[in-house]
């Protein structure tokens, strides 16, 4: 057991898998010699050498395309797209190529790869360097989409993603790189498609992802202490496959549900989860399902402004308190 940052957990997770399997290779911009712009891949080049850990040009289409071609023919690449927002410049692979290859070829071709990227706000990077693109990825049948909220989940989900025979979009949260958490020694392998109940509660279910998990947990403490409201907090972790059993199970029990989403309001992952809940647990709901999201605006750069946009602990507390009272 050791304390590890989320940042270091990335390198450890990748290293664990590269040690295990020679076919795991890693590529991206500034990831090798420099150890990544977020310093999340420091040491990998030294450990695994320049044939397995490779710097690329600023050619995101080439990065994802090459990862795909390698995966189709026998390797298990991990590709970094530095800022999640840059997925937009190679989105054809995300939308059209990776998810459809297996189906269109009737199973002849598989694409076992991981695409990891730093998403999310809070660092004052402005509208083009702060987005929660897990929502961009969730629409495409054939992809899997995960986003860890803690160091141990980074390692475990990374291992699960690398070992998974399907393409996995792996969103790390930039504002979490510095957090620390306890991590067991030895190999860690988690399971895709599993949500985690991080706090048990009886009055309402709060579903969150990534950075918002931490705010949801803090809000739950305050709601309990200050208002006697008992929240069950679910960390979704995996948007595809989606652990609807855990989510529906919790909602069925509590009768009320809130999502806490960092993304701008419209068509975030919460919309899908709410739609599933309303369809399948309608008669268990004691009140409207409420999404707590960023307002539907691009993210401003100035610190004060940015802090007003992304859901804060206060906003979560206030929204839940008001809704539960209504």
């Amino acid at each position: 057991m050791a304390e590890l940052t989320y940042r270091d957990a990335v390198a450890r997770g990748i290293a664990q898998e590269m040690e295990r399997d020679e076919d795991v290779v890693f590529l991206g911009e500034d990831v090798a010699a420099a150890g990544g712009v977020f310093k999340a891949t420091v040491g990998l080049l030294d450990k695994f050498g320049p044939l397995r850990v490779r710097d690329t040009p600023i050619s995101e289409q080439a990065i994802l395309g090459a990862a795909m071609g390698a995966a189709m023919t026998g390797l298990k690449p991990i590709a970094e797209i530095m800022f999640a927002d840059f997925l937009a410049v190679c989105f054809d692979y995300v939308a059209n190529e990776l998810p459809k290859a297996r189906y269109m070829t009737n199973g002849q071709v598989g694409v076992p790869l991981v695409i990891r990227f730093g998403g999310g706000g809070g660092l004052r990077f402005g509208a083009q360097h702060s987005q929660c693109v897990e929502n961009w990825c969730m629409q495409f049948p054939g992809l899997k989409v995960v986003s860890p909220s803690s160091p141990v989940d980074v390692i475990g989900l990374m291992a699960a993603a690398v070992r998974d025979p399907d393409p996995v979009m792996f969103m790390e949260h930039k504002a979490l790189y510095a957090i620390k958490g306890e991590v067991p020694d030895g190999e860690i392998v988690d399971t895709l498609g599993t949500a985690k109940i991080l706090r048990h509660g009886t009055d309402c279910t709060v579903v969150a992802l990534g950075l918002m998990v931490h705010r949801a947990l803090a809000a739950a403490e305050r709601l309990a202490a200050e208002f006697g409201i008992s929240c069950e907090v679910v960390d979704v972790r995996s948007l595809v496959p989606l652990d609807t059993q855990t989510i529906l199970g919790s909602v069925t029990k509590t009768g009320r549900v809130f999502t806490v989403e960092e993304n701008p309001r419209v068509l975030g992952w919460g919309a899908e989860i709410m739609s599933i809940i309303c369809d399948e647990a309608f008669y268990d709901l004691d009140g409207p399902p409420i999404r707590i999201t960023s307002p539907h605006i691009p993210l401003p750069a100035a610190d004060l402004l940015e802090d007003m946009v992304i859901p804060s602990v206060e906003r979560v507390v206030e929204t839940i308190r008001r809704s539960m009272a209504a």
Partner: protein
Amino acid sequence: MAKKSNPERAPKALINDDIGEAKRLEMYRLQVTIREAEQRANDLFFQNMIKGTSHLSLGQEGIAAGVAAAMQPDDKTFCTYRGHAHTLARGVPVEKVLGELMGRDNGLMRGKGGSMHLTSVEHGVMGSYAIIGAHLPIACGSAWRSQYKNAGDVTVVFFGDGTTNIGAFHEALNFAVIWKLPVIFVCENNLYMEYTLNSDVTAVEHPAADRAAAYGLPRILIDGNDADIVFRTMRDAFSKARAGDGPTLVEALTYRHSGHSRADPAKYRPEGELEYWKEHKDPIKIYKDRLRSFGVSDAQMQDIDTEVMQVIDDATEACKAAPTTSVDILFTDVYADGGWAWRN
């Protein structure tokens, strides 16, 4: 395509040059197979037995045949939507190609992919790609795997003249060169991107060859309607790739006899253009003359033609008789577990 013509009829003294008789007869057979299979696909369209769209390579067979004849069995092919030719050239049975076009259960992907996505991994055909340019980086990845694993195989990727203007072309070429990948980029310059003359929208005359230097590559511009030239060019490119000396970019000049796709009557052609290419630059005509000049008799070629037609007729009948695709494959192979479950 392994089937040989009747050896009794083989000419005694074919020029024993660097290509030789066997290869040449193979390339002849390939070209005829592609031509006739594509014609058949076209006919089946007009009988409404094929739906959707399809893009034929009529007139461009010299490239498919010349490249395939230079390949080893474990080399990899990446095609575009105009990929029937290259798929057939790797030895994929006509029946499986036509079956896919017809949406039958005997098709290569049992109808799930369709004309634009022909794939036959067992023949090294790693897929046909319908989004312009997307497969160039993907082919780099296949070549990277070969390099990394010291597998020795080479990846070939086909694309058109119009494709040279999309970003992925540029990224792939640079990437392949800096990583010295064993990949060969074959640009089939058939003058048109769909309905627009590619030279109207391209800054240089030869969209691939004139850009080779931008990636530190030699300028290679060849007649794509002469399978021998294609074969020799590719042989060198394969040697280079297998020697670890990196990628090659080839621009092969050609012309498509059909419209861009099923829907296209090709009214945009200047008068006489099609006729000129059919008369003077038809790859099969050119190749017949070549074979004749080496002493192959018309009768021998006729035999090959007949054999090919038989194969295509048989394939057509088999496809017509095959069941339409069974709907229970609808929900298979979205994910590797065989199914489509995105939730529990």
